[in-house]
Structures are given as C-alpha cells and as structure tokens.
C-alpha cells in the first residue's frame, strides 16, 4: 500500500483537500503522559540550575543558600550540608554545570523510551542526594518540615514519582500508580505519604502561627505585586489562625489517605480535595517555589503532589484485559 492510499483510506478527504481531519495518532497512555510531565519538571529544574545566581559564590549565591539550610539540623547533618556548600563555593561553575547536566540527562532520559529506566533510577539517587545535601533533609530533623513549606522536602516527591512511574506493561486499573508496584503496595505508599504529611502538619513548628507566618514572610521578597498581595493575606491568616490551619491540613491529609480505599466516585472527591488544597498551598504559601522571585532551584512540592494525586485517579478502560508486551500500553482510557 502506498502512503497516499493509506492516507486516503484513513482520511477520505485528504486527497481532495490536501488536508486531514484533526485526528491524533496513537493514543499515549496515561502513565507515559505523567512520565513526560515529570520530565518537564526535571528540565525546568535544570534550567533553573543555570540561572546567574547559581554560579555566584558567597552568601548571595547557591553555596550561601545551601549553607543557610544547615543551622537547626543535628551537627552530623549540618556538617554534610556545609561541606557540600564549601565544595560549591570553591568551584561554583564546575559543580553547578555538573548539577545542571545531571538534571538535563534525567529530563531527556525520561523522554526517550530506551533511556527511561536508567533516567528514573538516576533521578531517585539524585533526588535522595539533593534531599540530604541540598535541602537540609527537608527540615525533618529540626521539626520544620511542615507540608505548607514543602515538607518533608519537595525533592523527595521526585523519587516517589520515579518509583511509581517505573515503566511496566501491567494494567493501569484501577489507577496508574498500581501498574508498577501493584494495588496493595500502591495503596500502602499512598497511605504512608499522606499519613506523614498529616503528622508533619501538626508537629514541631508546623502548628506554630508565628513559624507559619514567617514561612510566608520569608518568601515574599522580590515577588510580583499580585503574589506579594496574596502573601500578605496568607501571613495575616497564619498569624491569626495558624494552629487551626495546621490541624485542618492534617485532617485533610488523613481524609485523602483514606480516599484510596473508597469507591471510585468517593476517591475522586478526595483527590480533587488534595489537588485543590496543594494548588492553593503552592500559590499562596510556597509562592511557586520562589521561582517568580528569581531565586529558586525547583518548584517545591505543590506540582509534584498534584502529579502524584493524578496517578491515583480511578480509571477504567474501554478494552478488556491487561496490556500485553509490545502494545506500548497504548489504549483508550476514560474516567469512571
């Protein structure tokens, strides 16, 4: 069959108009789409890594930012962070270029099917390393890991997403996350994550109105006017209702954790709740990770939690049976 014949068979109007109707090619499966969203976030991180201030030594640069994360941590944790800061201080161009390259490799690696697994594996190792050396362990060791601020560390979610998005030919029912690790393990991971978030919401400085106020106040420098205005509202809200807000967030996290055991419609409600809450937190508290102020290395936990929630969105398929090897997982997916 010639190409023209093939086109005419599929698009009868092509030969007449030289154009095809806007039909798409093979349907990309949802797991692959989420992998590509993760790749996009990694590449955003890579570009953020080559901002001018990242190459600047001293307190106004990347090394200074890292060293600022050490205080408050146990000495053995703080020492590793200051050591990392010192290495970057002495070789800012070399280290920063290397860091950016690793993130480019991860992002592009996820894009290509052949390098997908090594890239995801590298992303897990890299994320854990950055969590320890670059995020001060997310503040977990000094009680400042509130989910409002990205606790237990936004970069940890990269590792979790990499595990749950590991390529597999299994069925994506009842949700994408179950394909790789199985339904029981996926549910256990979900419950574990949201239970931890609930716990971190109400321990340490997470429930302190002043600490929550300062969390936002520390972010508002250099933000655009409209976001600074939102920050002022958030600061005032936390100062007056910080503890109830922390308790409410913990309750929401518990509800979301339980949602994975509900029937599809109920699960969807809890997922929408999770997505809405973390979208608000991402904007009004995390300030998009500080990216708009020009001094961020990643978008913080907000978008990653949202991607995680999408991986648990209940699905059904129009085709019976699991996806077989060689099918590329391409199948029409529709919501319940």
């Amino acid at each position, binding site marked *: 069959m010639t190409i023209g014949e093939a086109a005419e068979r599929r698009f009868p109007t092509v030969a007449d108009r030289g*154009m*095809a109707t806007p039909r798409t*090619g093979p349907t990309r499966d949802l797991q692959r789409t989420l992998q*590509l969203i993760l790749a996009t976030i990694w590449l955003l991180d890579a570009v953020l890594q080559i*901002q001018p*201030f990242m190459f600047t030594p001293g307190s106004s640069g990347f090394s200074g930012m890292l060293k600022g994360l050490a205080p408050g941590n146990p000495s053995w944790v703080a020492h590793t962070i200051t050591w990392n800061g010192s290495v970057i201080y002495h070789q800012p161009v070399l280290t920063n270029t290397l860091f950016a390259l690793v993130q480019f490799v991860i992002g592009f690696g996820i894009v290509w099917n052949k390098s997908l697994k090594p890239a995801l594996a590298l992303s897990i190792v890299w994320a854990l390393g950055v969590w320890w050396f670059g995020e001060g362990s997310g503040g977990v060791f000094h009680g400042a890991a509130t989910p409002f601020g990205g606790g237990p560390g936004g970069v940890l979610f990269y590792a979790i997403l990499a595990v749950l998005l590991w390529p597999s030919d299994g069925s994506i029912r009842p949700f994408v996350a179950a394909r790789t690790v199985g339904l029981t393990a996926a549910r256990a991971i979900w419950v574990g994550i949201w239970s931890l978030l609930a716990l971190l919401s109400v321990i340490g400085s997470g429930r302190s109105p002043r600490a929550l106020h300062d969390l936002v106040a520390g972010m508002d420098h250099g933000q655009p006017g409209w976001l600074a205005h939102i920050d002022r509202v958030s600061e005032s809200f936390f100062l007056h209702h910080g503890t109830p807000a922390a308790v409410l967030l913990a309750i929401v996290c518990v509800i979301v954790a339980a949602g994975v055991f509900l029937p599809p419609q109920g699960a969807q409600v809890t997922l929408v709740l999770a997505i809405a809450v973390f979208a608000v937190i991402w904007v009004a508290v995390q300030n998009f990770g500080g*990216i708009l102020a020009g001094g961020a290395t990643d978008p913080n936990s907000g978008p990653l939690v949202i991607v995680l929630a999408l991986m648990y969105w209940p699905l059904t398929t129009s085709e019976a049976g699991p996806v077989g090897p060689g099918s590329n997982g391409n199948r029409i997916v529709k919501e319940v």
Partner: protein
Amino acid sequence: MGTPAWLYYLFGLLMLAVSGYSVTLLVFSVTGRHHFGRDVDIAHICMGVSMAGMFVARWAFGPSAAWEFIFAALLIWFVVRSLKSIQRFGLHKPHEAIHAAMSFAMLLMYLYPVGATSRVSGTMSMAMARGGAKLDPGLGFILAVTFFASAVFTLASPVKGVSHHGSHAFAYATTVAVGATGSADAWSGSPQHDSPHVGGLEGVVTTPWLEDASHVVMCFAMGFMLILML
C-alpha cells in the same frame, strides 16, 4: 560572577544554527514547492537571529521597533491560522498555537527587556534594553513551562515533524495512516512531507526528527531567556 559567558555563547550559537537550518528548509521548501511549514521556518529564522543577539550582545542588530513589528506580525499570523484551524476542524489544540505563543514571548522580550538587564551582566546584555516596566514573572513562568512541555512532548511524540508541519498537514495524515496500518515509529524517522518522495541532501535536511529538534532547541532557549527575565 554570574552565568559563565560560554553558556550564553552556546545558546547564541544554537540559535544561529536553528536560523541557518530554517533558511535551508525554506530554500528547499520554495524550490521543491512544498507548502507546509514555511511560516514556521520564517518564524524560526527571525527568532533564532534575534535571540542570538539577546544571548550575545555583539551579535544583536536592528532596531527594537523593527523586531517588535516582525513578532507582532508573526503573532497575528499564527493566531489567525489557529482560529481558522478551529473554525475548519472544530474545537482542538491547533498546531499553530505554540508558534503563536513563541511569537508572543519574543514580542514580550522586546517590550519588557528590563528584567534581564537588571540581573544579568557581562556577555548577555539584551542590547535593545531601554528601561521601563518589567514583564510579569507569572506570565513569563507560564510561557517558559509551556515551551519546556512542548519540547518534551515533541521529542516523545511517535509522529515526527508535527512541530513543523502541523497535525493537519498531508505528511502527518500519511504518517498516521501508515501507523494505523503498519508502524508509525518505523516511518517516523524517514523524510516525508507533502511530497513523500524526497531524497538526497533535501531528504537529509528535511528529516522530520531534525525539524522537531530545531523546535526543541528553540523552545529551550526561549524558556531559558524567560526564566532569566523573572
């Protein structure tokens, strides 16, 4: 100390490479009487040359107003094409939308260059800087993420060349048709346009994955520039 100069030179050279490649595509398009993608080629030529001048000040030329006029015209062209596509094929994401967004971003870079000049020094200077208001960082961020996503999804697409010719082009239709009856992946790496029988140098230059690569490079450079302007 900020971003090392070689990084800006690297991006500048990549932009010139995309421009040069697009000129070649345009020449083959005119001489071979292929009609799809000429507007994208022209847009990439203008974007590549002007962005090279943004990354390396010495390479900048032409008055700002002229570039603003060019990118405003490209923006209008791609918006109109997008609307016509929707009118013709119903509600969908037109292929031209991403090129409209890129033209819009270029226009913003000339209208609001102060963000880059205030924080970036050395090689990169945004020579056309003239002060004034700063681009809203929220808008810049949304556009940057859009371009990164476009780059990623273009690279991952099993159907190559769509970034250049659009999903309504004959080449795309034939690719999908072949994919439906055979293997889209197998076909996607070979040269194809509205005329599928292309060989020689033209066949190499017009390889769909190469066309996609130029789009990806352009997306990244533009996203990086917008991040610098935050």
